[in-house]
């Protein structure tokens, strides 16, 4: 509260300015009338009549005793002589500010500081000052109608300064400029004569001038004096005339404050009025408030204290025909003006003062037509260089020649040859020209070593073309058939604009976990509704083998299950061509399905015979595909956890679904906290997005390049974000794990898990390598840049490290779910699953391997009695069993495994200590990720049965789902949720145990 801040305790009576007091009073009144009433008793504050708080805490003075914590007298700490009040008891001591001020302050306040005396006061400043002081004093003594100090402007120096006096004696008069006397005596004489002659009339002119000044207003009163006035032969300084108040506005009110243009208008009108004497009614509805568009909602104004905002503009005004009563005043024809008033004239014509608008001007805006583009202009540049190498190839190679004896020359020749090969013929010509006189370069012009040079050049070119051909080769093979914009772009190495894919992936990425599961199950095990139809259509009629493969592909796609390795049945095909074919198949399948779905079988039959190249189909789809996509996309349903306030439930007459659950802990505000845990959740999100993006891609069959690029990008992102996940846990461990036995536990377990880690790391690497290879080949084929494989190894190391950490926390946390998948590796296997069928197997193998490992780990670390089969469906059981196991353990503590026992007890201990919360949380986030993977995994393996399985896995699963999505928009929240849920789970567990 700022009340506290400006409520210091003072010794003595503070000197208070009037406005301060009033403002505080105002505040006090406002508070008393407004909020205080509505506040509960304990929130109200007692203040005195001036708004100061009466009661303080002990350190700020307790309650305000006496006179606001000062010496207990009304006067306060008054440094005065002791005067016996015995005799003059009734005398009212009159204290003023002056009593308490130091000498210099007083001098300052009274203006008694050192200044120029009257005698030397050339410009009359001191005189003015004195006069003002005098007036002030007088005013203080006899109160006037206007309270407060007199405004400076009202008080003018009563005396004339010595300078003015001198000037006057020298013949200067008010209103005249101080100018050096003209050397020309003739001129002087003439001036004198004219002055005498025009004495009367010039007076008149001056008066008129004064009048015009007054009208003009205070802004430009001095500055706008015409400097080169012909009629007034001598220049004059203005007589400073105050603006007489002629209007009926309040003092100081300037109606044109925000609209100076109206001031001009009014002035011209006023002067016109004065001249002609006729009054004209004009609307006063000119904007008094300058408003941006003038579209203020009609019919009402706005509060005095509020300002106009953009939203106050009347957006509806366009349709609302408010009758404007503004009367346009017809501009009068300009009157005949005397020369003595050029300024007014200027004002009326709206040009600079003293200027007139030229009737004709020389200035003309020059306009140039844009250059005419020749008809045969092609807006793309052709590079002659590289192509040259291609046709040169046809030349027969020059005969092989032994290199010249001179080693230097040989080196030179080789270097030049390389350069020429790289830079083209132009370089050769240049160097030829340059080194004409140089005997070393004779080989260029056919001298010594020319043969060798020719040979070398040829070799270099050969080398270069080989390289480039390798690159172009792949592109050509696919693009030879049809030169589309896309294929051309591919050849040129352009990245295609990612239009729909990007949106799709991002929007899908925000989908719920539930949807993800649906999607997954859709692809993996959908018992296709369309299986009946696609048998009839044969998009690859011309190639029976391909058609067969296609059919097999469809079968797999729609009848679900895992794909076998030799699914494509074309082991002799290269990886790249297989991948391409698969994409074709996807496209074809998509087209078939769409044709059926959108009742467009006609459309399909049209495309039935065509080649399903990845680019072509995309074009053919066009807008209707996008339409369908949007229809498919929206509406999207997500489900999140939401906690209604207990009061809300009460008011809605419902039972609080979270009744009995602990209130959500306040969010951690610590900086370290946010720093540490954001990366974790962000990573989760990324992983999700990648998968979803891929998912979506394979379903909708969008552009290949987009996705591979997408994958590459995502991959990079994941790699980047994996990095600093583990560090914080270490930090916390360093800080908080003081129990030595706990430490021992974790290390031992670390050892136990080491082999498992190794295996996992190995599988990860394998997956990555395969994925990398595939991506590279695909990228090469499509003329794309493949991100370098460099970060792989580091990532591997890191992920394994993170795994270790995860394992650590996992062990520490009894509530953790057993599966530990490396997120990045999962990403990869997922992507591969969607991209290439033949890689799937490896990914799955890696997976099952992992699962085995996990089972092993479980058996080791937890010591569970359950079957350790390595079948995939086992995982559900593992989970359930584990739960059961926990319960049973709770009942029979003796049967606990040693490890587990110590762990859980230490865990309990820790959970009691609030300060250890961080660690648990980190563990929990890990458990979340693992449960995520498990979910995904299960949905794949179980497919349609997931409804029932979901029921089984119960709340933890739902939470994790919820998590994921929360974590996307705000990592902080997800943390907070996870924390809470985690504790809830813990509490439940404890209950069970009790």
């Amino acid at each position: 509260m700022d009340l506290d801040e400006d409520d210091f305790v003072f010794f003595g009576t503070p000197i208070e300015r009037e406005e301060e007091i009033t403002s505080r009073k105002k505040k006090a009144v406002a508070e008393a009338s407004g909020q205080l009433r509505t506040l509960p008793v304990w929130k109200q504050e007692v203040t005195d009549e001036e708004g100061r708080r009466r009661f303080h805490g002990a350190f700020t003075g307790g309650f305000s005793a006496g006179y606001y914590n000062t010496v207990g007298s009304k006067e306060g700490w008054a440094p005065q002589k002791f005067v016996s009040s015995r005799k003059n008891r009734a005398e009212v001591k009159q204290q003023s500010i002056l009593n308490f001020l130091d000498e210099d302050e007083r001098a300052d306040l009274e203006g008694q500081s050192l200044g120029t005396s009257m005698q030397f006061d050339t410009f009359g400043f001191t005189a003015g000052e004195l006069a003002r002081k005098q007036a002030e004093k007088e005013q203080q003594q006899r109160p006037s109608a206007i309270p407060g100090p007199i405004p400076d402007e009202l008080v003018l120096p009563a005396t004339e300064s010595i300078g003015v006096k001198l000037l006057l004696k020298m013949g200067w008069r008010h209103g005249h400029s101080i100018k050096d006397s003209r050397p020309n005596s003739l001129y002087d004489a003439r001036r004198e004569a004219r002055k005498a002659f025009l004495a009367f009339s010039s007076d008149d002119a001056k008066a008129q001038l004064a009048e015009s000044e007054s009208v003009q207003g205070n802004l430009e009163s001095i500055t706008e004096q015409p400097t080169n006035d012909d009629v007034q032969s001598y220049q004059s300084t203005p007589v400073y005339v105050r603006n007489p108040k002629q209007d009926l506005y309040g003092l100081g009110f300037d109606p044109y404050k925000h609209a100076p243009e109206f001031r001009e208008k009014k002035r011209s009108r006023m002067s016109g009025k004065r001249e002609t004497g006729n009054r004209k009614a004009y609307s006063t509805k000119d904007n008094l408030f300058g408003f941006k568009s003038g579209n203020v909602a009609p019919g009402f104004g706005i509060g005095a204290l509020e300002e106009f905002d953009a939203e106050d503009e009347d957006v509806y005004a366009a349709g609302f025909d408010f009758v404007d009563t503004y009367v346009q005043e017809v501009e009068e024809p300009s009157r005949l003006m005397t020369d003595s008033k050029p300024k007014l004239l200027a004002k009326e014509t709206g040009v600079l003062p003293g200027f007139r608008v030229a009737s004709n001007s020389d200035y003309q805006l020059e306009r140039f037509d844009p250059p005419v583009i020749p008809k045969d202009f092609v807006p793309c540049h052709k590079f002659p260089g590289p192509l040259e190498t291609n046709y040169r190839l046809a030349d027969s190679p020059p005969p092989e020649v032994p290199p010249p004896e001179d080693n230097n020359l040989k080196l030179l020749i080789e270097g030049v040859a390389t350069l020429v090969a790289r830079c083209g013929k132009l370089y050769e010509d240049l160097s030829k020209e340059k080194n004409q006189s140089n005997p070393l370069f004779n080989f260029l012009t056919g001298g010594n070593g020319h043969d060798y040079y020719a040979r070398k050049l040829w070799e270099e070119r050969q080398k270069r073309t080989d390289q480039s051909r390798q690159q172009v080769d792949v592109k050509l093979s696919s693009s030879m058939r049809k030169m589309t914009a896309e294929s051309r772009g591919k050849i040129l190495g352009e990245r295609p604009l990612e239009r729909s894919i990007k949106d799709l992936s991002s929007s899908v990425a925000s989908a719920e976990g539930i949807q993800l599961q649906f999607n997954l199950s859709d692809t993996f095990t959908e018992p296709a509704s369309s299986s009946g139809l696609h048998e009839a259509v044969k998009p690859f009629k011309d190639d029976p083998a391909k058609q067969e493969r296609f059919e097999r592909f469809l079968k797999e796609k729609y009848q679900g299950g895992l794909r076998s390795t030799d699914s494509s049945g074309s082991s002799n095909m290269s990886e790249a061509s297989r991948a391409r074919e698969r994409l074709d198949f996807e496209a074809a399948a998509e087209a078939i399905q769409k044709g059926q779905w959108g009742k467009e079988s006609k459309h399909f039959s049209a495309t039935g015979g065509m080649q399903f190249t990845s680019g072509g189909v995309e074009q053919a789809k066009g807008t209707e595909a996008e339409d369908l996509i949007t229809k498919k996309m929206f509406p999207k349903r997500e489900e999140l956890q939401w906690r209604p306030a207990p009061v809300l439930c009460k008011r809605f007459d419902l039972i609080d679904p979270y009744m009995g659950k602990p209130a959500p802990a306040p969010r951690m505000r610590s900086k370290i906290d946010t720093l540490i845990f954001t990366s974790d959740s962000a990573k989760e999100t990324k992983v999700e997005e990648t998968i979803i993006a891929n998912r979506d891609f394979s379903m909708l069959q969008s552009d290949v390049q987009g996705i591979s690029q997408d994958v590459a990008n995502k991959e990079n992102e994941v790699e980047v974000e994996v990095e600093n996940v583990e560090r914080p846990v270490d930090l916390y461990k360093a800080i908080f794990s003081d129990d030595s036995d706990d430490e021992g536990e974790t290390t031992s377990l670390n050892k136990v898990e080491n082999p498992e880690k190794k295996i996992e790391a190995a599988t990860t690497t394998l997956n990555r390598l395969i994925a990398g290879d595939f991506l590279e080949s695909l990228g090469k084929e499509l003329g794309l840049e493949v991100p370098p494989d460099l970060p792989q190894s580091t990532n591997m190391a890191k992920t394994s490290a993170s795994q270790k950490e995860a394992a650590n926390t996992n062990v520490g946390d009894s509530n953790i779910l057993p599966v530990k998948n490396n997120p990045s590796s999962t990403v990869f296997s997922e992507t591969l699953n969607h991209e290439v069928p033949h890689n799937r197997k490896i990914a799955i193998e890696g997976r099952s391997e992992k699962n085995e490992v996990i089972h092993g780990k479980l058996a080791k670390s937890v010591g569970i009695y359950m079957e350790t089969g390595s079948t995939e469906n086992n995982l559900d059981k593992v989970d359930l069993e584990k739960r059961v196991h926990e319960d049973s353990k709770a009942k029979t503590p003796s049967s606990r495994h040693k490890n587990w026992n110590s762990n859980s007890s230490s865990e309990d201990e820790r959970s009691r200590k609030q300060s250890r919360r961080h660690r648990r949380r980190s563990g929990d986030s890990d458990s979340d990720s693992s449960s995520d993977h498990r979910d995904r995994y299960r949905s794949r393996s179980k497919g349609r049965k997931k409804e029932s399985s979901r029921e089984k896995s119960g709340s933890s699963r739902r939470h994790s789902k919820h998590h994921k999505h929360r974590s996307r928009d705000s990592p902080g929240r997800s943390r907070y949720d996870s924390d809470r849920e985690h504790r809830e789970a813990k509490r439940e567990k404890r209950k069970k145990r009790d």
Partner: protein
Amino acid sequence: MSELEVPGKEANVLKGHEGAVLAARFNSDGNYCLSCGKDRTIRLWNPHRGIHIKTYKSHAREVRDVHVTPDNSKLCSCGGDRQIFYWDVSTGRVIRKFRGHDGEVNAVKFNEYSSVVVSAGYDQSLRAWDCRSHSTEPIQIIDSFSDSVMSVCLTKSEIIGGSVDGTVRTFDIRIGREISDDLGQPVNCISLSNDGNCILASCLDSTLRLLDRTSGELLQEYKGHTCKSYKLDCCLTNTDAHVTGGSEDGFIYFWDLVDASVVSSFRAHSSVVTSVSYHPKDSCMITASVDGTIRVWKT
């Protein structure tokens, strides 16, 4: 399903608002209606007799929405001054002011027992305010929206909000879940069907969308009107047979609920039709417009 069922005859014109009327609402039994607008007033009318009953003035800025309790004893209103006013209908006094929204308040509704007022604000939040206690703090702030919340609907156990971020979010108090339906288009206004199974959402791509509440499925889209920049209301007729909504060109459209064909459309106002409200029992409708009038339509 004939055209006769749809109101198309102008029964009354309620004039009195200066400036645009932003919302017009029937009360729960349909005998009275309330309107509010840019002139910072709320007005109570008898639309059937066409008479103006009372004016409620206290808002400092335009009033954007108003709602009345089922027992007609209390009002709540909200608007550009970022406050929710809780009024006594008969005396016309403000009982309570709820402050807390950080932006304009777009919509406001009472719950079933008129114990809670839920408001939707430009500050991307839904807030629930307690009318029973004397606290002026919100009892619940829902801030999962990512853009201005335009409209709010309440059922017995749910709070439904529609937002410019394209989502319609249902907050189920009973099970503590939030269900978000992303429509992909800014949602202007949502209204519940009378059976409570569907949500009609007016989107800024000039489309009304009918959503199944249980599955989140898009049941139907209604097009033909213009709704691109204003907050326009939409609603279902009392029988749930038709969907109606205003248009920015002053027209009113009636669509068939099932086959989404335009059953009827006519020019009702000279300007944007901001609000439509359907009589709970009869075939009667009121429309409010930027032209400052409220019109009562009957068959």
